[in-house]
């Protein structure tokens, strides 16, 4: 199932895999799958592979490398899937940061989201909502979307776009579960062109 790293494939379902250490919480995964399917208007295939990512643990940091997770996902993703999203309960990091909630390949195949810091022990609905937001966010990157500063979602709700950078749980809770009209338009164009659609003046940070 080896495939070239970073090659985006359209169309095809989004494979949603539980790759955590604890047992899968079916309801939470279901909520995430429904939100992802709705947001990107794509079929989502939920699976729980028997294998778990290997070689991702950094013993010194006692965290898992999100970069290694992505490599593993790319290498193991089903052939017919356009994207693969890994959901895990281990804490993720990239070398320069203390942690990340998730990571994705920009315009690539794989995305990973961790529940380690997003889980609300007494509130499964909140946990599911947070994971769904970050799942949509990370998959958004695989569709070429970058971070966005829009403060209104496509339903007209006054909340930051789901593609807003969310470096804290507070920021995850504050943002919308949905794309803003600008990101929606870019996603639609991405589906047609299969490549990123940012022009110089459209990029919020340029």
């Amino acid at each position, binding site marked *: 199932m080896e495939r070239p790293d970073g090659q985006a494939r359209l169309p095809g379902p989004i494979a949603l895999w539980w790759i955590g250490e604890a047992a899968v919480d079916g309801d939470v995964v279901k909520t995430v799958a429904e939100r992802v399917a709705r947001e990107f208007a794509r079929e989502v295939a939920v699976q729980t592979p028997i294998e778990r990512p290997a070689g991702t643990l950094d013993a010194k940091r006692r965290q898992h490398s999100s970069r290694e997770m992505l490599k593993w996902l790319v290498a193991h993703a089903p052939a017919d899937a356009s994207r693969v999203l890994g959901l895990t309960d281990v804490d993720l990091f990239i070398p*320069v940061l203390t942690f990340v909630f998730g990571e994705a390949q920009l315009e690539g195949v794989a995305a990973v989201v961790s529940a380690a810091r997003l889980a609300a022990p007494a509130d499964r609905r909140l946990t599911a909502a947070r994971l769904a937001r970050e799942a949509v966010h990370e998959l958004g990157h695989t569709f070429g979307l970058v971070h966005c500063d829009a403060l209104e979602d496509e339903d007209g709700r006054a909340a930051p776009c789901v593609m807003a950078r969310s470096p804290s749980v507070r920021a995850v809770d504050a943002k919308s579960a949905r794309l803003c009209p600008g990101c929606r338009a870019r996603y639609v164009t991405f589906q047609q062109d299969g490549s990123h659609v940012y022009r*110089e003046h459209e990029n919020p*940070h*340029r």
Partner: protein
Amino acid sequence: MSTASTRILIVDDEEIVRESLTGWLEKDGYTVASAADGPSAIEKLHHEPWAILLVDMKMPGMDGLQVLEQARKIQPQATTVIMTAYATVETAVSAMKIGAYDYLVKPFDPEELSLMIQKIVRQDELLRENETLRRALKRDYHFRDLVSKSALMQNVFELARTAARSQSTILVLGESGTGKELLARAIHIESPRHSGPFVAVSCAALTETLLESELFGHEKGAFTGAAARRRGTFETAQGGTIFLDEIGDVSPKLQVDLLRVLEDRRFCRVGGSEPIAVDVRVIAATNRDLNKAVLDGTFRDDLFYRLNVIPITVPPLRDRREDIPLLVEHFIERMSAELGRKVDGVSRDAMAMLMSHPFPGNVRELRNIVERAMVCASGPVLQVIDFGLVGPAPGQPAAPPASLEEVERRHIAAILEQSGGNVSQAARILDIDRVTLYNKIKKYGLRLREPAV
């Protein structure tokens, strides 16, 4: 929101750090590049503009502080953040001391990184906004091609604008290189005659006979070699402005001829007898003291009074040192296009040197040395060495200062140098109080260096 690209350069010897940080920042929409060591970072700084530099402190060969030091010289507008694996007060202090914006301890908190980058970008936007406002303000410092913010020159501009609207003869006085011809051109462009020609004649460059022929033209056969009739500049300037530069050097005979044209608005070509009527605005200029020349009897008083209807004196550059940075910026801007070179500015040391240079050749001299520096400079920031302003040769005394102020400026600079930049000590030697000394340092644009420890 700014439309300019925010470009971030990551300098770290660890590939994994470069890669992960690049990925993280690219998702924010920034343009990100990386360098694996100091020398490649410096190379990149020489070739492309960067808004933010994220530089690792500990790298083999050239460390983060050395990169920061070079970056300050090559791209002083770039904001540098030092990344370090160990947080020590010394690290922070030394980094901030040489101009780092802040420092981050690896691994950083995602929120801390996001907030810091956002803050820098916002600050950059404010700086750009400030620059736009400054440019708008600068437009007020312009009178056509002349640039000045000094009160003296603003008065000159004001008078020139008023004079431009009249038909009166103007006499522009000022040292060589102060921009007398530029002022004459600006007056012409601002005058109702702007659609007519502007013709400049340097009265000192030609012999009496040639100048006469140049000004009034000649008939065929008027003198040996006059094979055909030729129109003079008074005729070609018809309906426009004639600029008679170095009028103080005109011979007594030509002074009479010029007086006649100014009085009658008519003249005859050399060798001709037919008077020709002219409709020309005369602007004359000289660096000589015409009052003295009149007293000496070398310049006709009646011509002087005819010319001196609206006298405008352009002050020398040493009397408006506050214009030096503005003029330098103006010349860099203009010559960047002419020379096809991108220059971002002048180093602090070089500007201090320019501020204390006497400029006997005035703005022309400044323009020439800026051009020289732009040609010689190896980086985008002009350094002291690029200007080629050398002091007097060893054993040779410096040229005697022209004014009392210049004597004072040089003396204060020398005492400050002698006291190693210690203002209190210098004030004691000069026998003045520190406030007075500070005021004089400010007045003369002298640079204070760190006192020796």
